[in-house]
């Protein structure tokens, strides 16, 4: 019997409970998803579970449904639904802030929701070639921050988790960006499957006490107007997991015809 994947079933015809729960949250919030979006989300969840990248996640925002109600939902669990400020544009290709006043509050507070900063990651999928601003982050003591193109001094891609950062001179702000801290002395800034920069400087285990936001560095502004088509917050990933994560997200974006 053929069971379409958009119903929340994988190719083998087995329903994925986390995908189905996400669809239910979107519907309850007043959002709607297309058949293609449901299929892409289901495949993403099944793939991440198979390759070991599902468990490290605390929040996944797949940015599907072209509405605040749908894009606010966390795929991983019912925790951390986002709240958007005014000034966002929602489309089937993702969400775009205005770079001035717009951000999304995730409600995820590192000092509360992480036990250590020494294994943590942030990711965003940027579809825009545009300089300036932070795509996801929070400040205060310690720092969680990821920018595809920060445009400050000579820093372009900026990945900071802890009390030091990994910066690079990458000249494109399009693609999948990952700030990945594996240990106290291993922080990487990754674009797609390429490590742009790494830091071996020892960080202190200080977790920010302010909620992580999308499109800004919470606490100091620096807002991004890049279109975001995916974002995640979670524990640190091994190199293999990071590579598999990129592959899964890129397949997800390709299914939705919004890959860059």
């Amino acid at each position, binding site marked *: 019997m053929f069971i379409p994947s958009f119903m929340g079933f994988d190719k083998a015809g087995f329903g994925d409970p986390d995908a189905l729960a996400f669809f239910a949250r979107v519907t309850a919030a*007043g959002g709607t998803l297309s058949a293609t979006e449901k299929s892409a989300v289901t495949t993403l969840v099944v793939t991440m579970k198979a390759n070991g990248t599902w468990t490290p996640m605390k929040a996944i925002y797949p940015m599907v449904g072209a509405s605040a109600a749908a894009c606010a939902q966390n795929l991983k669990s019912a925790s951390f*639904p986002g709240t958007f400020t005014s000034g*966002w*544009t929602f489309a089937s290709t993702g969400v775009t802030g*205005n770079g*001035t006043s*717009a*951000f999304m509050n995730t409600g995820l507070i590192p000092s509360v929701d992480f036990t250590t900063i020494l294994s943590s990651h942030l990711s965003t999928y940027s579809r825009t070639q545009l300089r300036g601003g932070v795509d996801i982050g929070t*400040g205060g003591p310690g720092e969680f921050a990821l920018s595809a193109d920060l445009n400050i001094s000579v820093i372009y891609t900026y990945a900071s988790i802890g009390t030091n950062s990994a910066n690079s001179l990458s000249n494109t702000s399009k693609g999948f960006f990952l700030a990945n801290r594996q240990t106290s002395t291993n922080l990487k800034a990754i674009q797609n499957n390429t490590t742009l920069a790494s830091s071996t400087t020892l960080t202190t285990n200080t977790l920010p006490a302010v909620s992580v936001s999308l499109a800004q560095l919470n606490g100091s502004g620096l807002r991004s107007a890049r279109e975001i088509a995916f974002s995640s917050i979670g524990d640190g990933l091994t190199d293999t997991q990071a590579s598999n994560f990129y592959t899964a997200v890129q397949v997800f974006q390709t299914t939705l015809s919004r890959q860059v």
Partner: protein
Amino acid sequence: MMIGYILTNEEYTQVQGQFYTPYEFFNCVQDINGVWFLFLSTQDKETILNDPTWNWILTLPEGEYIAPPAPPFPG
């Protein structure tokens, strides 16, 4: 050039942080002179157009926003 709605301090107090949908709230920013601005996307405007609680915002004067100096970074 960014064009936004210009708010008095009283109007700012009235709207700042208020939710106009379950997942969206107003966020104002100050310009270089300390004047409050509210930026609404086309979708935001469509959302509040028929909401009597908030559609008065669409009648506010508009003006050019000049950002204050960027904050120091990294913190």
